[in-house]
């Protein structure tokens, strides 16, 4: 008997608990005396996890399969970088501006694709993302093109960045949790399952789709900006379609439509890709095959498999 655990509110709360548990374990990892290189790899996987969480809000919870998460991260990074490069503005202005500009562009992209769904929505967002990347790449006078732009750093300590990113991941999870636990979360899920049906129940779908676009792009923009301060460089490569592909694989492998899935997926995919790099440059082949296997056989991803195991061990047996 599946019982009350299948209620959305209960599923989400359990999800958040596991997310926090995972973050608690991640917080202990630096006790293993990691090299700066390994710390850097972990920090970059957190960056991807943050974008993956933002994209998951839009695609996993709202059913809007955007192909522009990496482009929004690039835009966030460039906003802070351009404000610093041209106007000498500090990150205290740059970071909020990055979030605001990403939110505004999220609103514009969201408005553009409102009437679209499925492959049409994906292709339009992909086209808009490519336009943004090519414009940045070709505007040498303003952006220095493919050379990229320097960004001031928030701190020199990698350990500091490790815990900063981890704290922000927790903050993002709490934000998404609060949103999804509220009535608005229910509306987003209804739109995901049947937008027309949601509208016929009285849900103003335009408003909530736009809201999801804005929040998702803000999270991506924020992630991109922080990543820029960590690497002290932003470049058009941040917005490459391959980056979006990696983000989507992280969510699909980790578990779409969950809080913990994108974090699990980001850690496994990014750390796995670093490991596979030493084996030979076969990481994209491995991830492509993994995505196919998960999409075909395990649609709920690792998080779904983990939940099945959890309920088998701790819940169903007792009933």
């Amino acid at each position, binding site marked *: 008997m599946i019982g009350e655990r299948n209620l959305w509110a209960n599923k989400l709360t359990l999800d958040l608990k596991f997310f926090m548990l995972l973050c608690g374990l991640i917080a202990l990892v630096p006790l293993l005396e990691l090299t700066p290189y390994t710390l850097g790899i972990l920090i970059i996987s957190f960056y991807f996890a943050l974008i993956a969480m933002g994209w998951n809000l839009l695609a996993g919870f709202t059913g809007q399969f955007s192909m522009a998460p990496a482009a929004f991260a690039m835009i966030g990074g460039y906003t802070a970088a351009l404000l610093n490069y041209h106007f000498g503005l500090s990150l205290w202005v740059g970071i909020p501006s990055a979030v605001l500009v990403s939110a505004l562009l999220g609103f514009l992209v969201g408005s553009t694709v409102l009437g679209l769904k499925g492959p049409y929505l994906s292709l339009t967002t992909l086209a808009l993302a490519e336009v943004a990347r090519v414009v940045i790449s070709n505007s040498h006078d303003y952006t220095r093109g493919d050379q990229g732009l320097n960004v001031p750093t928030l701190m020199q300590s990698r350990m500091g960045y490790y815990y900063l990113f981890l704290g922000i991941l927790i903050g993002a999870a709490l934000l998404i949790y609060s949103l999804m636990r509220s009535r608005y979360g229910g509306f987003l*899920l*209804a739109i995901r399952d049947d937008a027309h*049906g*949601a509208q*016929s*129940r009285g849900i*103003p779908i335009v408003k909530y789709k736009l809201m999801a676009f804005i929040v998702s792009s803000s999270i991506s923009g924020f992630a991109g900006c922080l990543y820029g301060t960590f690497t002290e460089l932003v470049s058009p490569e941040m917005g490459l379609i391959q980056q979006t592909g990696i983000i989507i694989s992280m969510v699909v492998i980790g578990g779409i*439509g969950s809080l913990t899935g994108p974090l699990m997926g980001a850690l496994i995919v990014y750390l796995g890709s670093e490991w596979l790099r030493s084996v030979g440059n076969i990481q994209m082949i491995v991830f492509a095959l993994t995505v196919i296997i998960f999409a075909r056989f395990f649609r709920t991803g690792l998080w779904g498999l983990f939940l099945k195991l959890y309920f088998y061990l701790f819940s169903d047996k007792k009933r």
Partner: protein
Amino acid sequence: MTHPIIKVDSISKRFGGNQAVDRVSIDIPQGSILGLIGPNGSGKTTVLNMLSGELTPDEGSIFLGDMNITGESPSRLVQLGVTRMFQMTKVFVRLSAIDNLLIAGQALGLNQAECHERADQLIKELTLQPVQYLDAGQLSGGQKKLLEFGMCFMVPPKVALLDEPFAAVHPIMRQTMSQFIKDRHQKGQTFLLVSHDMPIIKELCEESVCMNAGKIIAKGKTKQVLDTAEVIEAYLGGDHV
């Protein structure tokens, strides 16, 4: 004559060269169960689509009480009290049955406590207790129909537009649904019922409207409408008249 809660004034809708609905006027009296019948392709669902805001009439007007609601969006119309059950069931398949009801209540401004209270009541009334925690996608076709039916009544609407609610539904569930309609009707609820199921139309609807080829061919007391030669011809063909 009871004041109509919905007044449809000469609406028309054309799709390319096909005149789907041609100057149709219908009054739905407050507190009535009005049947809307007609053979396939007669324009019933198109009329319903215009009433629920899915389509905007090319001509004519629709009034809810004194308010002109022609061309309002579906979500606005639900907020105004015009709810719709679809022929092709629309439930949120990856959410539990009870979550479906909660979302329908929240969309209409109920708070959490009210939502839970009404959802529990509807689950009980519609005998969905055994499946209330299952994802809606796992329910049988009939259970999905019952669930969507329940979602229409999380907040009692001014008018419930029901498009083939009994199609492909098990007789016991059909009984549950028709009893529910009768009970609500006793309390003054207004329904527009589209169905091919003549026994149920006879049982529930005192008055009916019959459409064919986009036009109204008969209206009035259900029994009289069903006995009209034009209606019999429309359903069974000329040889049976």
